[in-house]
């Protein structure tokens, strides 16, 4: 793709028309490369915004207080900035969600990959994926107005807003992330391993658990890590159903605020640009970004290991 003239003896004589075409082609290529590069700008924008806005926060609040204090009250007259209060809420809802999503997702994945007839699998997979397509605000409604009252019948001291009901509903939302990706990983296990296992007299369940599952382990682990990342970052369910009181707690019956719920709560009010409260949501945001980034890189790394396995 050169725009310079060639020798007239060449078969491909550079006519003006051909030259115009080459310039056109070049232009298109540059344009497309710019579009591809725009995704890097998005990342750059995210990191730059978070760093710049939280820099003035951390100039004011020492890191030691940020990471060790257990009170998070940035909007009070006497503000305290201990991110642990939000991190503990985030961790607890994540744990509850995972206690649903990981077992259920794994069982469904094994069932669909090893036991279910192919036609059923073709139907069930897209239907399950609808679970992750439901707008999260609808899940929030469901958690607050259906699941919470239902759970209160069995657990009288469950508060109206609770980690438990938000986490349970979030867990259901995350099931397809685990089931779909794990199923893909298990189906990628070569049939010869299964046949070898059957030939040695193993049962279907034995083959699934002792041969297929370990062989697909890094793919399955990647789906788990992705599920954790989703649960940590999920916002609307917890903002609606888990409550907005930052509390250092490990009791799932309690209400608690998560990092993302705090950001929503502050954004709903009218905070002046540049105030401490405004900066505090970026400080919370960069914490959330760092946590999910670690999990995403972990998932990426696990998936690559899995790809190299065969």
């Amino acid at each position, binding site marked *: 793709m050169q725009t310079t003239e060639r020798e007239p003896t060449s078969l491909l004589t550079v006519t003006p028309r051909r030259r115009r075409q080459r310039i056109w082609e070049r232009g298109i290529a540059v344009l497309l490369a710019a579009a591809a590069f725009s995704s890097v700008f998005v990342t750059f924008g995210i990191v730059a915004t978070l760093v710049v806005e939280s820099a003035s926060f951390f100039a004011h609040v020492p890191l030691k207080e940020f990471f060790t204090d257990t009170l998070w009250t940035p909007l009070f007259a006497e503000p305290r900035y201990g991110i642990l209060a939000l991190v503990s809420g985030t961790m607890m809802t994540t744990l509850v969600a995972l206690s649903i999503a990981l077992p259920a997702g794994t069982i469904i994945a094994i069932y669909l990959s090893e036991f279910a007839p192919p036609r059923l699998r073709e139907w069930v997979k897209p239907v399950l994926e609808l679970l992750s397509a439901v707008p999260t*605000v609808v899940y929030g409604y469901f958690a607050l107005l259906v699941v919470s009252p239902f759970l209160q019948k069995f657990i009288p001291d469950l508060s109206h807003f609770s980690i438990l009901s938000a986490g349970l509903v979030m867990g259901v939302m995350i099931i397809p992330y685990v089931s779909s990706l794990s199923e893909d990983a298990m189906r990628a296990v070569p049939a010869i391993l299964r046949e070898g296992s059957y030939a040695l007299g193993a049962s279907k369940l034995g083959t699934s658990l002792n041969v297929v599952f370990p062989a697909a382990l890094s793919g399955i682990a990647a789906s788990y890590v992705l599920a954790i990342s989703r649960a940590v970052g999920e916002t609307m369910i917890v903002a609606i159903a888990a409550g907005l009181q930052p509390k250092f707690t490990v009791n799932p019956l309690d209400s608690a605020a998560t990092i993302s719920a705090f950001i929503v709560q502050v954004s709903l009010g009218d905070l002046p640009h540049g105030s401490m409260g405004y900066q505090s949501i970026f400080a919370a945001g960069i914490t959330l970004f760092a946590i999910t980034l670690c999990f995403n890189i972990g998932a990426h790394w696990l998936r690559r290991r899995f790809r190299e396995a065969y």
Partner: protein
Amino acid sequence: MTINKWDRLAARRRKADAAFKVLGVVTTVFAVGVLALLLGNLMIDGLGRIDWQFLTSFPSRRPAQAGILSAWVGSVLLMLTTAGIAVPLGVAAGVYLEEYARKNWFTAIIEINISNLAGVPSIIYGLMALGLFVYGLGFGQSVIAAGLALACLVLPIIIVATRESLRAVPASIREAAYALGATRWQLISHHLLPAAAGGIATGSIIAMSRAIGESAPLITIGALTFIAFLPPPPFIGDFPWLSFEWLKSPFTAMPIQMFNWVSRPGTDFQANAAAAGIILMGLTLMMNAIAIVVRHRARRRVRW
């Protein structure tokens, strides 16, 4: 071991197999059942509220008179903005990565970057848009700032879908086009993009269904929860007949409206929330269904 013992062992294993099969079915039914329960509950709570008045009224302090006019108009405008930005950009990026890019550090960075972007929580996009678009570039709390945020959010989905559907076009098409003297862009625009259109459309619809239900980034930007006016119309009486004033207008959207109603006490507002939820779910399910049909038809129509 005697034959008898082997038989008993085999029987036990068959029982374990059957038991797991039951467990698998039960778990799958549980997951699908929650979805059905959620839909059913919304229907019971909200179906009675959906009528013409609900669709054509502004939100109100009185729940019985409240409607979702400004919310669905806002959602439509947001979708137009988001699709207008994300689809061309995502398709172009996908085409570049699949058809032009050589394997070097530049494309490696872009690829790692895209897979990481796909995992960034949506609220982080909201914070980025708040710092960058709302204050940094001075767009204010407007449709364009929100549309840009949602476009960034769904960009990875469209890029990945474009790449996958381009990859599915067989080499023979490329070779034939090049053999006849087509340039790279002629090959792409005349053959590859039409062949991949089904997959790209599927990805774009999925991306839009994600964007329409997204609320966290909009709240962060500062979507208002109570708007009793409509943005200026895109068509005007004078030349040039098109107006983009609406891009700068404050906005609300369906999920924001629903969130606002959910967080209010009182069953009347909750009925409104459920009604908004039905419409939101209906749109999401419809878009997903269209995507599944498009994918299915594209797969069947084209036989390589």
